[in-house]
């Protein structure tokens, strides 16, 4: 068994276990951290398969940006701040564990890259191009039509989101502070002039 195969099994096992815990743990912060670990392990698997660009994109975009945003959202959902702060100590072991596993994976990855020989039948290698260059050419030459349809889908997503959220709802009661400040006495108070009435006056 080569070191490379060993690495693959390790990354694969971590990815599967982490993915299972995403849907099985009760705590949503732990679940989000496990999802980070799943993405990271999958990025390592892709790197092993010599798909550098996809691996790096997954780590940068999903782990770096999307999941951090996700973690913020999950943490913000609980507006009560006192439990959130005491949660820091409670989640620290989970965070440390995730960080340690990710570090081990990174170190193994560096070890593999030095040993690995490039596969001979890789189309990118045959064309004398880097992986990224090859991907770009494929995307904009062979897959230009699907690429453009995907852009249309994103446009529809935008239009749909605006359509469903921009309507004024009839039952919302919004305050307008500037109008509240600008209010004058005449807008609110009406003086009515009435004839004084006398008690016991007989009708004429």
């Amino acid at each position: 068994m080569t070191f490379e195969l060993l690495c693959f099994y390790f990354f694969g096992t971590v990815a599967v276990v982490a993915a299972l815990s995403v849907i099985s743990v009760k705590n949503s912060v732990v679940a989000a951290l496990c999802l980070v670990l799943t993405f990271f392990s999958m990025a390592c698997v892709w790197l092993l398969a010599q798909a550098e660009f996809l691996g790096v994109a997954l780590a940068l975009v999903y782990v770096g940006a999307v999941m951090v945003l996700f973690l913020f959202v999950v943490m913000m959902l609980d507006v009560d701040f006192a439990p959130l702060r005491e949660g820091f100590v409670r989640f620290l072991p989970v965070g440390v564990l995730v960080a340690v596993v990710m570090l081990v994976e990174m170190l193994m990855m560096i070890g593999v890259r030095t040993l690995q020989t490039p596969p001979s039948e890789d189309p990118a290698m045959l064309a004398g191009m880097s992986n990224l260059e090859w991907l770009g050419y494929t995307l904009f030459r062979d897959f230009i039509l699907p690429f453009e349809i995907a852009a249309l889908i994103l446009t529809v997503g935008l239009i749909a989101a605006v359509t469903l959220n921009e309507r004024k709802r009839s039952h919302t009661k919004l305050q307008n502070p500037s109008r509240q400040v600008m209010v004058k006495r005449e807008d609110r108070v009406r003086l009515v002039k009435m004839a004084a009435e006398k008690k016991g006056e007989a009708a004429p």
Partner: protein
Amino acid sequence: MTIQFNPADLLAILPELVLLGATCAILLIDLFLKPSQRDITHWLSIAAIAVTSFLVWRGAPEVAQGVSAFNGMFKHDGISVVLKQFVLLTTGLSLFYARNYMRERSLLFGEFYLLILFATIGMMLLVSAGSLVTAYLGLELLALSSYALVALNRQSAISAEAAIKYFVLGALASGLLLYGMSMIYGTTGTLDLAAISAQVNQVEHRGWLAIGLVFIVSGVAFKLGAAPFHMWLPDVYHGAPTAIAVFIGSAAKVAAFGLLYRLLEGGLGPMSEHWTPMLALLSVLSLAVGNLFAIAQSNLKRMLAYSTISHIGFMLLGFVGGSPAGYSAAMFYIISYTMTATVAFGIIALLARAGFECEEIDDFKGLNQRSPWYAAIMGISMFSLAGVPPLFGFFAKLLVLKSAIDAGFLWLAIVAIIFAIIGIYYYLRVVKVMYFDAAADDAAVPLPADLPLRWVISLNGLALVVLGLAWGPLFDWCNRAFGV
């Protein structure tokens, strides 16, 4: 290496490009319009659809033998010409039927037109898909627009419920479809449907291919609304604003036929001995569930939803033979169904007023005394759905039954006839309510001032009679598309 670009590719996809350009122009123009000027958006959208339809018709002779563009991603042939024309026609009809209904409920946003136009582009790409990727992306473009359209009425809880159900089940169906596609890509190593078709028989891992096939059939059955994957359909038809139910119930069904044909015959044609029994099972279940459950409905939109399920069962009869003649009959059937269903839904939209949906069957009581003309049109539509000669629906049923018998599925044809006879009951109930029951009030139906709506729905209703008497040219057109 340079990126080579073939200008002929753009010519093949010209109708889609023109429609997309028009949609983007409408998107910008609509921003500058006041709500009272929404008619401009309406007529611009209809003009865009008409121009696109003209371009598809103009390009038809060149593509009769089939044109492939963008490395086989986009396939334009006789079949896609017919399907695109009917997608555009039914979309145009639903725009006519929608305007008055949406305006009375103050739902006539510019986005309504945009979403419908984007969905139409998705359907056109879907029916010309030459690769698994384009098929999936076209489907998603259609589906995402449809989810938003169903949810357009924010005030209505029932619309929101329908939209959530549609979204969750639609996402599940897309997931099934994608999973099946990944299996097929994994075993054949290509995404191109023609290449898959050429390689299917040489594949060594047949088991994985079969699993992929099952997932694809389930995913497409979800989108078609064939039993046992029909659960979303009645709720969505009931919950969606009627004007949007017209669109989802007509144009989207034509596109779903295209998806079924492209994936099963186009990609997995050599495996037809595996998928025809699955489709036969779907067909029997759809016929039974659709017709039996429709009897119990008191809401006309729900009844029409169950009737859709039974019609999908009928349409699948054309597929069980796995022969071009059968596909041609199935295409004729789906065209006949959509032309008829637009009339039925259109009448519901026409009779509805602000604060009154006119969707219960009891709301049609005594319609003949109050508005004889629209009662007659609705009657024609019901008779055509039931398959009464000499209307359009009768010949469609006849042709799919004939193709099923030719393919050796006599038992299936007998089952279909039995359920069609059961189905006549609930269609005739609507006719009976209109003609023989007394209305709650004798006041004449206040018809909308929208003259184009009244004219178009009348023409659509009369077309059912005309096409029933002269169905030959349309059937010839379908046959030519499949090279029969």
